[in-house]
């Protein structure tokens, strides 16, 4: 079926199967591979994107249900060669090892700072865990530090 998705500010006509998750469509049809497959059951956060500004694990919703919603992926955060403050803070704190969870972590961090511009460390931990973001390399302390730093940078 043909659906129109608003991805990173652009209307994109895509041919999808009714069962296709948003993640599948982003990665396979639109070649936006920043969002990663990690579990397919919304338990690892690697596929996190923004839907109307909120963190959504894109392996969960069917793409066909998201027409007219504003979808933002990691690919759209960098503007004119300038990293988003959360991206920059992840880089500055080297809040990654293998990097596979990083786009999902960053998107969850962006959503958190939109809703709560100055979170405490406990709020960062709670929000990231609520979104189920997982870093198997164990860089959690650096991720918390990076999100905190990004909040300060935006102050």
């Amino acid at each position, binding site marked *: 079926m043909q659906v129109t998705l608003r991805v990173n500010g652009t209307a994109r006509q895509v041919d999808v199967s009714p069962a296709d998750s948003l993640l599948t469509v982003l990665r396979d049809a639109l070649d936006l*591979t920043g969002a990663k497959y990690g579990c397919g059951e919304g338990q*690892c956060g690697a596929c996190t994107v923004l839907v109307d500004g909120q963190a959504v694990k894109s392996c969960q919703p069917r793409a066909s249900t998201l027409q007219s919603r504003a979808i933002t992926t990691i690919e759209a955060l960098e503007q004119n060669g300038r990293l988003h403050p959360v991206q920059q803070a992840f880089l500055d704190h*080297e809040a990654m090892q*293998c990097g596979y969870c*990083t786009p999902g972590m960053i998107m969850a961090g962006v959503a958190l700072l939109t809703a709560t511009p100055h979170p405490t460390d406990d709020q960062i931990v709670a929000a990231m865990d609520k979104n189920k973001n997982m*870093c198997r390399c164990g*860089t959690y302390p*650096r991720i918390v530090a990076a999100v905190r730093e990004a909040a300060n940078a935006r102050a």
Partner: protein
Amino acid sequence: MRERDDSAWGRGPTRVEEDRYELFEAPRYRFEVDRRDFVKTFGTGLLVMFVVSRAPDSDAQESGQRGRGGDRMPPDVGAWLHVGEDGKVTVFTGKTEIGQNIRTSLTQAVAEELGAPIASIALLMADTAKTPYDMGTFGSRTTPTMNVQLRKVAAAARDVLAERAAARGKKLDAAIFGELVKGAPLVATVTEKTTTKPASRWSVAGTAVPKVSGRDMVTGRHRYTTDMKRDGMLHGKVVRPPSYGATLVRADTRAAEATPGVVVVRDGNFLAVAAPTSAAVTAAAAAIKTEWTGGSHASARTLFADLRKGQRGEVATWGVTIDAQYTIAYIAHAPLEPRAAVAEWNGDALTVWTGTQRPFGVQQELAGAFHLANDRVRVIVPDTGSAYGGKHTGDAAVEAARIARAAKKPVKLVWTREEEFAWAYFRPAGVIDVSGAVDRDGLLKAWDFDNYNSGSSGLRTPYVVPSPTERFHEVDSPLRQGSYRGLAATANHFARESHMDELAHAVRIDPLAFRLKNLKDERLADVLRAASEKFGWAGRKKSAGIGFGLACGVEKGGYTAACAEVDASNGSVKVRRLVVAFECGAIVNPDGLDNQVSGAVVQGLGGALFEAIEYEDGRLVNGRFSQYRVPRFADVPPIEVVLLDRKDLPSAGAGETPIVGVAPAIGNAIFDATGLRIYSLPMIPSGLPGATSQL
């Protein structure tokens, strides 16, 4: 007194196979790249090779027939470096980047010796068609071997460049590298005269150079295997048996085959489909009806009885003697990027992109599976979404290649998370019997240690004890098992350091003083002192429900000590604080090292507290992230990492060993808090024993 017993190791004391799960044969011969090959590959510029008669990595191989009869052994090229006429420096190494940050640390080594900026150096890694043979990226061997080789290669290149600059009356500068190598191609090798800088003179190595691929990570631009696309590529899916070892009796594939664009592959027990989209391939696989027979009925309930096979031998007693049995569960690596491969045939030539720690091993696996010569198979490893010892094999590569051959199109196969849990391999489970004895002064007098199945890494005690007996018993494992970060050192340190703690309490000596009293290894004593000082061990204040524990160990050239504080006041255990000291010789990148140590500690928390593979009737029953608990944000206590920089000592690898002290330090803290000694890993999969129905 009995001698240290090596017989059970099977290979005698001189060829101890510490890492039995990491033993892989190298190809028998590797010949020098000759000048014509170089011209064909690079055309111009300067090529410098590191030629070794026997690569340091081959230490772990059997010596076999290679040196017999006084024949000169064929030379190996360990690494090479190319300086182009455009001044660009490309370094070729067979090592893989899996998150351990060697793309950065190896670049630093080259930049240091070559005198070139980090940004001017590119590492071409893990491509069997372009990089020198490498046994694999495991065993914390990259820093002690490849880092040293690349340092020498870069130093040799610098010598050539310096000579050329001098001949032209110019000052050597990276800006004129291109100019200096213009003209006829140059080939040089590292010689005995090639000298590298001592760590005390490092200015780029030894510093916190940022991750060279960091920007590609935070922008999502880096393409992992799972992100790859090829023209005309199909998606593949394997139809798996319901239990381990089951045999396919029949498969009704008519519905799938009737679907346009779907390819069904049946080859013996292998059954798979390919289709143009992931939705179509999922539907096609679901449309196949299968019947399987036989297979394993193994159950986790009998695991430790299954493993505890073999003779312990006579156990010594002396003064205060304590016997205990420790058990270790299977755990999963669960790398966030599951196994995946993209396979493409061109006639009888095969190219596979896959995330593996052993590109050349997977090349051989593919050559074997498809009856091809090695040179018909090219394996390319994009920087990979972690591995932790879990990606040594080429399962996904072989499967993707088999499907692609049938489909006559490139095929991408990405294992689902459920497949990754069920069909990869596990960190070995084990049973460890320990008997230890001390005299009234707290000196170790006897030590008997028997490890069943979990492995021999870290088996030997670093403490001074007369004639210890330490055996590793190979047992048939009910589940497929293999390498894991630190191998069995985690299990062996858990048993040893828990037991040392128990002995210390038995003779009423402070656990720190008890260890120092029984240690002669100053490097180990140094990390113990460093961790305990940072932690404030001497001034720790006991209160109800709060406990403190420590542990230490040495493995793969790295020394670690951990101190833990736990709160067990509410019937559960909360780790409140961890201090980990680590020393691995001269530090190559302090920030990267801090990241690795901290990451190892977090991963160690999972195996220490709650990770365990559950299986029943030959089937995995908790193979999903909703069922298999891994450390999350809220599980992580404040972690303080203390790094000891020994510029006077060679650099050792660091990705693995910091994991070994975590579990025993926490276990010892739980004992301190509650008086309860926990003898199993994980320690508290369902809360504190005694607070539940278990006691």
